[in-house]
């Protein structure tokens, strides 16, 4: 057992998928010409005033409820004051002491055990703009399209005990948020960002060590790497007889290190105070209940149901429900095809392999649940073999054609005609006397070679069961 215990708390920012910004009606759309989705309000022009987008509050409450939070009746906005060129008002409208959601939790499974992590709070705030630094230019350019895009910040309790747990927490958080539909939660595109507070303490201690805050970890992998590095760094400091200092550190993805950005003494005094331009939010109980009713079935509930209702193994259920898109696909396929395990096998086999290879989600492919159901039916009724199914999959992903069509076009229909197969079997027996002899002499595995030869000649179309059966009959 390690000499030290690790303590981690995460602050996760998630971009909400509302159509318009948090305090004005500018679109939130990503990737447009710089400074085209702006107006006096999100540019923070003198005299402009923010007007709260109700949808943002609804989405944040949804996140809060999905994370088992309490929703206080009274919430307010505060200004976080600091100077930076991407922040046009020189303050960010955020929530300080009275956020929209408090005191929740999130459970995730790791190494067969369920871990519960406290959620301190969920609050809403506005995003800042983006600075573009030219490679050799002595100036920077500011793009305010992103300014005012709504964010929620989800703050966890310092309940995580390892970088591995942190990663598992993030994956589960992503999954839960994805289910609520309030964000597309893509870390790589910046719609999910994560800062971590990390400290270590002697194993068995009750008192947390001095923490550092790590910024700029931009992928799940980076979070784990960054945290592993930081924990090791703090251990080395302590081992060398030093003290960990409270500071903000930045993760450098290329060098694989964290480095000091600013010390506690240099920490910003944000001078939070209630924003006098915005009236407090009164959250009516009925509205919260309405939002609660609108929540879809969450991944944990689905996983349990898949096991009890469809008889899926726990592992399969967990893999499929981790992604809402995958899980929805699964259910849609089951509406047209009865065998849940077969659907699960397809999803976790060929399909997941393809998705991982291309780094996409299932709804981004041309594959549809109907097509998968049809493919499985073609296998069940013996039209194609499992092997052929793989070929069909590839074509389905790339062309989006119906499987029956693909099978017909490419002549992939399984040969189940006994005479046709028998002819090939005869030929293989004639051509491979050595293997035939081996088999007859008791070398069981020789038949595998012979089956392979038949499949090869039939271009994979021969019904493998029939091949096996005919071979054995002839060689008996």
């Amino acid at each position: 057992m390690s000499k030290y215990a690790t303590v981690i708390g995460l602050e996760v920012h998630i971009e909400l998928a509302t159509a318009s910004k948090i305090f004005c009606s500018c679109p939130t759309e990503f990737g447009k010409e710089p400074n085209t989705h702006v107006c006096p309000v999100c540019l923070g022009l003198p005299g402009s005033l923010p007007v709260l987008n109700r949808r943002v509050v609804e989405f944040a409450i949804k996140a809060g409820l999905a994370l088992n939070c309490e929703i206080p009746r009274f919430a307010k906005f505060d200004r976080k004051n600091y100077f930076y060129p991407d922040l046009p008002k020189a303050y960010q409208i955020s929530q300080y002491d009275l956020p929209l959601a408090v005191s929740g939790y999130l459970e995730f499974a790791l190494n067969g055990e369920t871990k519960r992590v406290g959620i301190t709070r969920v609050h809403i705030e506005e995003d800042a703009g983006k600075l573009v630094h030219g490679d050799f230019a002595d100036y920077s350019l500011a793009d305010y399209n992103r300014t005012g895009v709504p964010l929620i910040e989800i703050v966890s309790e310092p309940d995580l005990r390892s970088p591995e747990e942190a990663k598992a927490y993030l994956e589960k958080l992503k999954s839960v948020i994805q289910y609520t539909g309030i964000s597309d939660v893509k870390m790589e595109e910046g719609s999910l960002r994560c800062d971590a507070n990390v400290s270590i303490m002697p194993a068995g201690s009750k008192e947390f060590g001095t923490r550092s805050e790590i910024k700029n970890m931009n992928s799940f992998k980076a979070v784990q790497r960054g945290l592993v590095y930081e924990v090791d760094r703090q251990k080395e400091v302590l081992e060398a007889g030093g003290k960990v200092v409270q500071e903000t550190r930045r993760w450098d993805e290329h060098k694989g290190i964290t480095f000091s950005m600013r010390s506690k003494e240099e920490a910003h005094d944000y001078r939070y105070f209630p924003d006098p331009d915005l009236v407090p939010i009164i959250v009516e109980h009925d509205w919260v209940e309405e939002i609660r009713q609108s929540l879809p079935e969450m991944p944990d509930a689905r996983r349990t149901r898949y096991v009890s209702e469809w008889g899926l193994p726990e592992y399969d259920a967990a893999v499929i429900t981790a992604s809402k898109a995958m899980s929805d696909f699964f259910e849609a396929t089951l509406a047209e095809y009865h065998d849940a395990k077969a659907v699960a096998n397809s999803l976790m086999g060929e399909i997941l392999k393809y998705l991982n290879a291309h780094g996409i989600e299932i709804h981004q492919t041309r594959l549809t649940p109907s097509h998968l159901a049809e493919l499985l039916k073609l296998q069940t009724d013996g039209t194609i073999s499992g092997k052929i199914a793989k070929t069909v999959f590839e074509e389905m992903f790339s062309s989006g054609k119906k499987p029956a069509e693909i099978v017909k076009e490419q002549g992939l229909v399984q040969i189940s005609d006994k005479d046709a197969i028998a002819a090939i079997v005869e030929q293989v027996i004639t051509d491979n006397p050595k293997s035939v002899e081996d088999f007859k002499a008791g070398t069981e595995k020789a038949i595998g070679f012979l089956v392979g030869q038949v499949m090869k000649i039939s271009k994979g179309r021969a019904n493998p069961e029939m091949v096996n059966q005919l071979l054995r009959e002839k060689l008996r």
Partner: protein
Amino acid sequence: MLEECTVAEALKLLGKKEISALELTEAALHRVEAVDERIKAFVTVTRNEALATAALVDAKRLSGEEMPPLAGIPMALKDNMCTKGVLTTCSSKILDNFKPPYDATVVELLRDAGTVLLGKTNLDEFAMGSSTENSALFTTRNPWDVERVPGGSSGGSAAAVAADEVCFALGSDTGGSIRQPAAFCGVVGLKPTYGRVSRYGLIAFASSLDQIGPFTKDIWDCALVMNAIAGYDSRDTTSVPLASPDYTAQLLGGVKGLRIGVPKEYFAAGIDRDVRNAVQKALNVLVALGAEAEEISLPHTDYGIPVYYLIAPAEASSNLARYDGVQYGYRAEADNLLEMYKKTRSQGFGSEVKRRIMLGTYALSSGYYDAYYLKALKVRTLIKQDFDEAFKKFDLILTPTAPSTAFPVGTVEDPLTMYLNDICTIPVNLAGLPALSMPCGFVNNLPVGLQLIGKPFAEATILQAAYAYEQHSGLAKKKPVLSGKGVPKDE
């Protein structure tokens, strides 16, 4: 003498087709040319736009179209209200080149009402001051005595109306910035209830206190202008979703039975004796007209100024942080970002603005927040409760507007002494109440202001009492005599 017309008089003449909107605007522009060299009310005169607007109004009139309520009336705006494409400086170096790409809500409303914008008026930089001496551009002069200040911060608007350069003007009032200059210049100035008039497009000083209101030559006009600018605005969530009445409807109601509270704290030692006497006489008139008056106490009055000078600078320190040289306005040359910020703000802001930014920054700092800002918010509530209590028994509260009449330019150098000018007006902003200043007499030919404070959204009650008093006093007709270079006496 067309320029002397009130809004109501001008509307009458326009209605009878005795004059055109163009003639009215030309008369006003002529007056500006004649007197503004001495008054210095205007930062920008929008001469061409004004003439074009007036011509457009006339064209519509001739075609027989139904005209909006204030069609053809020349007016001015304090230069902290955003006007699309027209310089909006806040009388600050840091915004001396700022042309907003949008109109403030009040600007839209006044345009819809058919008014003619004649120009933008001077103020203490970012509305911080009580004399317009803090303007980075120049000091506006009091039409009653050009050696004296017009008050502030809306000194330009007050002086422009007093000098008959426009029929009416808008100002903004954070701690007395409409009422005190109205008092000094002998005109009517109303600060509406917080939330009655949209703040959208008003360049913020202290968001929880700022409110836009009219300067007019008499009470009737004040009601007319309020009809045009009051109301809910979905772009300002602090504006109140409450229908606004016709403010002229109640004007003739008289004061019989109206209960007036007279807080003793507002007649204390710091208030000039002559001012006290003038206000007392006005009270006597109101009582003679049938009002009931009684001395009351607003015990937390003394805390008004200290509370205000924590809350207003705290909000200002944040509101004014955006003037950083990045997007618009003045930018100092520098080698790096931090230096650019420092130089831009050091050079771009005047000393009073910087003083308040520092005060506010300090008050909000971690470790001091509870002792200063939070405490101030609590005392603000106590001040509001004083008024709530009083208004259980009374319809109006009557006080002086300012402790003295207009003082000579350059004589108040100590900021704290300057701050005391707003001792009678600040508590009203802290409580969010409506209050009006109107002339109630003269001391050494300088006007004295009477302040009438009302219940939330009871502007109509204030106007009703004010109208009754004005009819009796006849002071609205009294005009300053402008003499000297370039000022034709009898035009």
